[in-house]
């Protein structure tokens, strides 16, 4: 009997030892695992930057396996993502890193992939319901994006005026979450009482649609002061539309944009302030996370901590925006103005 007790004790010690070990994992490189980086669709600069970051991590961890950057063509984004997810599972990929553009529609395919032993790590845009997802690598806290966007609107409008939102597609999970968080911030804080959110329209992440939607907003709301566009395509198209029609004095543009694409509009005053995070870092951190999970060095439990190379320590935590889902928070992001945009655009 006594020996059994000792065995039990030893086992308990071993388990607690194991959990202590996972509490701060330094990921060990050199293990072979094939992985897929799956963006919303191909041909958009920020996704390519994420790929650069992932490739950097891939080289750093000396993974002898393959890192594939595959995505659907733009007109086939939703169906294409689901198909690639399914194919990756069939191929026995170690992990799929997904910037989800398919809403919850991708969940069955992602769950099937998990059952086949493929880890599913989302980045940039999560699976809204959290089904079929191991963990979401959040670029910034979705709640804090709301605060930053509300603050930029506040500073552009001088605290008082009308704002409209020009988003990407109506079912983009990340943009919808950011807009919702901005609406909460606007409603909750007395500071923003003078800002009226008059409309939310969608430009489908296409230049021509976004351009026309921005102009329609100006026509519809003669007192509009700022167009807030939480997408790099929308913010740029809206800025161009305001510039082309000579409306920059009247309507400013803000939101999330790439410095290299926005520099001229920031310098001429059409888009005085906008924000973004580093997509290379996002790709890098996502790769570390997926590698850890796929090689079994990470389990994917809340509270698990690991070191992601040059970026330092990260912890898996509960996602405050999506009950039951897990996330790793990257943050922070940079607000660009006429003072720092030129340096960042180089």
């Amino acid at each position, binding site marked *: 009997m006594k020996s059994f007790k000792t065995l039990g004790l030893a086992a308990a010690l071993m388990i607690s030892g194991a959990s202590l070990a996972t509490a701060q994992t330094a990921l060990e490189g050199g293990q072979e695992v094939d992985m897929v980086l799956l963006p919303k669709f191909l*041909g958009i600069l920020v996704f390519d930057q994420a790929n650069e970051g992932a490739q950097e991590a891939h080289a750093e961890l000396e993974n002898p396996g393959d890192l594939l950057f595959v995505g659907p063509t733009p007109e086939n984004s939703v169906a294409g993502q689901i198909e690639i997810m399914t194919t990756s599972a069939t191929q026995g990929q170690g992990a799929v890193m997904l910037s989800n553009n398919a809403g919850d529609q991708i969940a069955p395919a992602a769950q099937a992939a998990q059952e086949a032993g493929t880890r599913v790590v989302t980045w940039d845009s999560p699976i809204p319901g959290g089904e079929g997802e191991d963990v979401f690598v959040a670029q910034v806290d979705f709640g804090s994006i709301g605060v930053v966007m509300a603050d930029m609107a506040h500073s552009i409008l001088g605290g008082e005026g009308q704002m409209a939102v020009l988003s990407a597609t109506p079912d983009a999970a990340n943009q919808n979450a950011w807009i919702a968080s901005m609406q909460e911030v606007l409603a909750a804080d007395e500071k923003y009482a003078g800002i009226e959110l008059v409309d939310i329209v969608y430009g489908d992440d296409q230049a021509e649609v976004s351009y026309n939607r921005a102009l329609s907003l100006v026509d519809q709301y003669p007192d509009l002061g700022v167009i807030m566009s939480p997408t790099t395509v929308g913010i740029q198209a809206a800025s161009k539309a305001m510039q082309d029609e000579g409306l920059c004095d009247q309507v400013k543009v803000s939101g999330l944009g790439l410095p290299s694409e926005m520099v001229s509009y920031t310098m001429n005053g059409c888009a005085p302030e906008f924000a973004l995070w580093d997509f290379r870092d996002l790709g890098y951190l996502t790769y570390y996370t997926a590698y850890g999970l796929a090689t079994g060095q990470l389990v994917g439990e809340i509270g698990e901590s690991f070191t992601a190379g040059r970026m330092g320590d990260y912890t898996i935590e509960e996602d405050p925006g999506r009950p039951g889902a897990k996330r790793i928070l990257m943050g922070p992001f940079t607000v660009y103005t006429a003072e720092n945009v030129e340096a960042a655009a180089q």
Partner: protein
Amino acid sequence: MLRLMDRLNPQVLRILALLAVLVAVILFFAAVVPNYLNGRLFNRVSSSVAIMALIATAQTLVIITRNIDLSIGSTVGFVAFATGSLITNNPDLGPVVLVLYAMALGAVFGAINGLLVAFARVPSIIVTLGTMALFRSALVEYSDSKSISTANLPEWLVSFPNTVLWQWGQMQFRAAFVAAVVVVLIVHVALSRLRAARRLYAIGSNPEAAEMAGIDTRKTVFVAFVLAGALAGLGGFMFLARFGTITVVAGLGFELKSVAAAVVGGVNIFGGSGTVIGALIGAILVDLIDTSLVRWQMVSEFWREAVLGILILLSVAADALLMRRLVAARAAREHRKAEERIARELAAQAQGPAP
């Protein structure tokens, strides 16, 4: 009034019917959208339709021959990107070279479609469905995930579309719109006056008869695709000038919009009839409805596409009904006149031999 209508040919009647629908749509939105009817509306729709007018014209050329070009949106996107890339790397190139480059590139894409449809005898809907994906993927590959940025384009190119040529009140006639209308008019005159162009209609209305009449149907269909490609290339150039920023999604969905514009504009989807003027008005109608729906608070984002679809169906139906009514009324009048004439002749005959 009725007599005037008798003298007009059916194509002109159709265009009049379309204009009536256009006015009805404007009046409807003026009633439900505050602050709607003004010069700015004209500026918005005219600037935006300048691109679609060219693409709908290209689509019309192909549809008349009983074919369809679904790859046209991808062609526009690729040409816009490649032309932008050319001018970014060679900023000193002049407008003429750039336009010719865009049109030549478009013509090459058109020739690929034309070869497969006319000579390999594969149905155009299948060929262009394939090339739609092919050209788009080629663009994704060619672009290398870069995008064309307005900042790297020469000033003349970026300012061209919005240059105001003349102004009437708040209404501005801008260079892009005027250029597009001029191109549409040239194609219209060519289609209605040139003997060679009439072959397109002949093939569309009856390919076998056209062949028996000695028309080289293969060559003609091939040429139609090449011309459509060149016009789509010109559309790509205009797209680049207007938006400046070109990513791989440029021109996405233009294939269906151009088919919608052509069909709304009275171009018969089974070939053989239709005018590019009609397609131009169709493009204006679709764009007007799209622009106006955004401003109509009743319709939420998720229903807009559906409402646009319903309005397109309604305007096509209204146009068809109106046309049928007019044609029937005319036939009835002609019938009545003929009866009267016969009655008079009979009466004359009856009177004739009596005395």
